[in-house]
């Protein structure tokens, strides 16, 4: 009984961390069609921002939930103004440009923070469930992911800004004809996407040791999740993160961590073979 609870928490945690890792990319790639190969590096920057801020004496939660998203969002804004805005609609070019960008970020981070692993310890203590001890921080990540999804849903569906953003992504020319500036809207959306990546990096930082190349570990999982999710932003994110999270943890627990990672990739291949348009290309069609 205790064990099944622990496993349930681990599965939920795996799903939540996939949601976190992929949320920023879902906005930038899923909505805006910018192949952002620097997504992992945005997360890495979020992590370093948190560690630096905590080192300067800022409360760890403020650093993770406020400062890191803001800083990375601003970095994203600068990147968008300097590079990305010239490349909208040119998929391959955005890919090359952001790949270059990721190398620049890794180089800069190495120069500033050095190449040794750094980190902070998790701010929430673990607790006992029957005979088992589980990490309290896992619950925090589950909560953050849930709040994030609800917030995204609320903004995109409930606010005028969300509506305008969605409309602009679909038909920028019509939005322009209606008097909105697609340039501004793209800029704002990219800011939000970057901020989400920064938040993910920040929240995951206390769990892992951070090096300038840490971003590489996330990029593949983020793309797999977003692509397998398909055209719908939130439904896609949730459905694919759930499928992969469950597959990964069940195999990890039943067999071994190696098989867990392999199972995730096999699941992705099978899924994309059966549903080339992603999960929401077949199910939940037209949902947000």
């Amino acid at each position: 009984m205790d064990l099944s609870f622990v496993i349930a928490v681990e599965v939920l945690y795996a799903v939540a961390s996939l949601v976190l890792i992929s949320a920023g990319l879902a906005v930038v790639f899923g909505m805006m069609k910018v192949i952002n190969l620097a997504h992992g590096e945005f997360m890495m920057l979020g992590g370093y921002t948190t560690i630096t801020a905590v080192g300067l004496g800022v409360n760890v939660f403020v650093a993770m939930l406020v400062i890191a998203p803001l800083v990375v969002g601003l970095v994203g804004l600068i990147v968008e103004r300097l590079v990305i805005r010239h490349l909208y609609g040119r998929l391959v070019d955005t890919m090359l440009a952001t790949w270059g960008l990721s190398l620049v970020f890794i180089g800069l981070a190495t120069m500033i923070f050095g190449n040794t692993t750094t980190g902070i310890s998790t701010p929430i203590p673990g607790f006992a469930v029957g005979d088992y001890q589980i990490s309290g921080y896992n619950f925090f990540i589950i909560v953050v992911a849930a709040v994030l999804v609800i917030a995204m849903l609320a903004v995109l569906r409930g606010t005028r800004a969300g509506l305008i953003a969605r409309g602009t992504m679909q038909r920028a020319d019509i939005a322009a004809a209606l008097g909105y500036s697609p340039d501004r809207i793209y800029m704002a959306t990219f800011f939000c996407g970057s901020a989400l990546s920064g938040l993910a990096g920040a929240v995951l930082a206390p769990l892992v040791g951070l090096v300038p190349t840490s971003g590489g570990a996330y990029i593949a999982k983020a793309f797999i999740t977003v692509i397998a999710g398909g055209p719908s932003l939130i439904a896609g994110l949730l459905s694919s993160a759930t499928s992969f999270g469950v597959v990964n943890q069940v195999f990890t627990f039943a067999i071994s961590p190696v098989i867990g990672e392999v199972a995730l990739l096999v699941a992705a291949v099978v899924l994309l073979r059966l549903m080339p348009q992603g999960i929401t290309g077949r199910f939940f069609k037209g949902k947000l």
Partner: protein
Amino acid sequence: MSLNRRDFLGRTAALTTTAMLPTAVFADGTIKLGSILDASGPFDAYGKPMDQAMRMAVAEINEAGGLLGRQVEVTAYDTQSDMALYSQYGQQLTRQDKVDVVHGGILSASREAIRQTMRKTKTLYFYNVLYEGGVCDRNIFINGVTPAQQVEALVPFAMKNSGKKVYILAADYNYGQITARWIQKFVADNGGEVVGTDFFPLDVSDFGSTIAKVQTASPDLVIAPLVGGAHLSFFRQWAAAGMKDKIALASTTLGVGNEHKVLTPEEGNGIMCAYNYSQELNTPENAQFKEKWAAMFDGDQSMHEIAVSHYHGIKTWAEGVRQAGSLDRMAIIEALETGISIMGPGGKVTVDPKTHHAVLDVHLMQMQDQQMKVIETLPQRQPVDTQAVCDLSANPNDNTQYEIQI
């Protein structure tokens, strides 16, 4: 007399140098030491202090008057944590720079990338890093601790402090696999029981399920030959789950790159390990070594296990040259095979003639407030794992890395 352009330039240069240099130096020139290390990139936490250790050892040799009356000159290449560069620079050192000895290589892969080149070109090679054991080649000398030297000491020590049920979490490549087998052997030899073994690819950084799985087996002790930055997360998540005070931890790798200084005291305190070196070793050699290091590198405190092995390696080579009285490769090998010893910051280091590995002290340690406190010293341990498969005095032409069967 026919004189082509190259000969002409060469002779002119030789004449000019003769005129400019004092006779004593001209008679011999310098001794060239080739170094090949990842001084930048993901492995620089290992490589940079190794590079510093090398420079310090060479400076000490030169201050003491050099070798055979000649100064030692370093030709160093930074491989930037890129395996492809090892072959390239290895070739360059032997064919172009024509060095007298090569010290370097960090990962086993980098060692294997250059070992054959060194053998073919008859260049003496020193690899000075803790590794999985089993390399048997007369042209190479190895100073790092091998699994048996370390694990045989660590297992009974850790079991005495915790209990008989052991769970192993290891990195999924040859080092982790082989070390895990040694752990299984020594746990059984000490009357314990291995209740589970899991292997992790080097980029896995989420250990949540594993921690639950370990608890299901409820061992008394977890031994973790985990490697690299991603695996450091395990020690963090273990502490975050509140497991630190429930099940004891030991590691065969944590600390060799000063990882204990990255973990907070809450995460690191109490983890047991066994190495040849710790900054906290209380010996006059170590005090002197640390003082010199800080003076030479601006107060830097990054010396660690692998850097000290590297330092021992260079000092051993120098002693070999001194005793051989020549730079001839075979003469040095034969001199070293007499069982040369040096005293270093990690204690006495002796060349084992049979395997070309080192006989050295292993210290049992426990992490405490970001330090590695020495609890007990086991003197002069033999590399029994490699000795079991390798005998260079019987088979001098051997050229294999044995995968040790246990």
